[in-house]
């Protein structure tokens, strides 16, 4: 495909969108319960878990990528653990590896907005729902999640965008296999290395527009919800 007369390899874009979408879905499934558990935790160990979840925010992605590679080699602990459930195959340098790395790397971007949404819930409202005979799962899906929808939206958008923007972890875990694990950020790096500035420009511009639109979206969500509450 060519755009403005510049050859554009669309595979990295398509791959990036897929990885980001699946990462977001996986994190909705595992990040939301983690956020709920942490927000309800009264133990003094809570700070330890909170720090653990936030670790990817401050670690260099290469550190995370390095440990992930070690865990995900064919004899690594993660591979062997998954083997207990009948998993066979490779985790690194493929799509699965990209998703696992992205999930860990983006964990705080889902958990933190959800935690603050959960902590902002009115206890009285939750109590009222209980007294109306709503059991926990009933409450969770009919009261807790709907009232936390701002956190859900912000967490999902941030997770998606952050996955799109990652570089270090996907490079280390996924490698840079053309047509298989080469995501947009890596493709840009490649183009620059090979002095293909036109292609680098095009992809970078796409990323800038995407990132800007995402942030505008997040701020719009936040404004709409706070206006509603006010």
């Amino acid at each position: 495909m060519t755009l403005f007369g510049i050859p554009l390899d669309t595979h990295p874009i398509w791959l990036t969108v897929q990885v980001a979408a699946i990462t977001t879905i996986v994190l909705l499934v595992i990040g939301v319960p983690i956020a709920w558990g942490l927000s309800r935790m009264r133990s003094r160990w809570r700070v330890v878990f909170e720090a653990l979840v936030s670790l990817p925010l401050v670690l260099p992605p290469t550190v995370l990528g390095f440990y992930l590679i070690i865990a995900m080699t064919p004899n690594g602990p993660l591979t062997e653990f998954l083997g207990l459930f009948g998993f066979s195959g490779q985790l690194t340098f493929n799509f699965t590896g990209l998703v696992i790395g992205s999930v860990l790397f983006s964990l705080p971007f889902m958990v933190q907005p959800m935690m603050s949404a959960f902590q902002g819930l009115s206890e009285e409202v939750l109590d009222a729902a209980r007294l109306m005979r709503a059991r926990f799962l009933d409450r969770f899906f009919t009261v807790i999640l709907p009232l936390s929808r701002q956190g859900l939206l912000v967490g999902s958008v941030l997770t998606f965008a952050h996955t799109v923007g990652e570089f270090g972890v996907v490079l280390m875990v996924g490698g840079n296999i053309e047509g298989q694990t080469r995501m947009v950020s890596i493709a840009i790096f490649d183009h620059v290395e090979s002095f293909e500035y036109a292609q680098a420009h095009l992809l970078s511009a796409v990323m800038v527009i995407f990132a800007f639109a995402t942030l505008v979206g997040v701020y719009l969500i936040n404004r709409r919800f706070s206006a509603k509450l006010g």
Partner: protein
Amino acid sequence: MFAGNLILTVGDFQMASGDFAFDSDGITALFGRSGSGKSTLLRAMAGLDRHTRGQLRFHDEVWQDGRRGLLAEQRDIGMVFQHAALLTHRTVRGNLAFAARRAPGDRGAAIDRDQIIERTGIGPLLDRAVGNLSGGERQRIAIARALIGRPRVLMMDEPLAALDWRAKAELLDLFETVIRDFAIPTVLITHAPAEVERLADRVVFMADGAVERVEALKEALGRIDSPLFTEEGPVASLDGHVERVDDDPHRLRFVTTPQTDSGQPVTFQLGADGAAIENGPRRLRVRADDVALSRERIGNISMQNQIPARIERIDTSGPGRRAVFMTLADGQRLISEVTDRAVANMGLDTGQAVTALVKSAALMR
């Protein structure tokens, strides 16, 4: 019937109720100063805090036994919180539907949804979002939602505290009629003596995290050190009904309900304020300050209410002040506050027949 002994620690506050037992029918007021543990006891009774320990029975059902408590979801309690606690992601109709969908079907006939909406006057609000309703409207919806859930017990945690006086007055009327008409046992937290005098059948007094005592309202108003008496001084509360005098719309009288088999009703002339006559039980509030005493009936005097009474006992109510507790012919109580000197000069004593001169009396309902 509620009976139990509950312990619940919240932060550095401990509520240890001690043994308590009270009938659940009618309206029970949980009364005490702020910080006395009323809300904590109510939350423990509702099963809302899993750190609750102790015992609680509702009739024959065990609600709490040691660490194990019946889930709040299974206690069939309708709760009205101070700030209504409506589901803000739903409309008014959606809030009612939430309760209706989870209500048991078998107690169905007793409470009808349309009837509740009509009685609480929330019909025009049904399609509104709950975000921009007034405090009074929210509480109407909260009580409607609680009733639609077909509870066996209604619990209210200072439901009027956040309202302005007008909304307060309207909701007091509403609570009263709705609770009586649907005959739902109710536990009401309040720190306003006027609400207790008006609504309650019995009072659970709380202080320092414990149940101090449980008394029928009459008893609670029958002792000079009652926590229900504020700076207004002692107050008597009389049960009865209102009648027209000679079919004249501007002349009303209050006729008390005898409390004993041999009791005779007592009649109070009411002011011509044209208070709406509603059938059914009403309550008259008489401040001890507004009652003067005479040894005999007086002929020419502006006070039209001269009620024969017998002195039950005389207590000291303050420096130089005495509270004279009297029994009326219907078995109910009236209190008069007079000076020491008056007691001495008139030779007042227990057992004496006197005439109570009632300057003013207010209908509470």
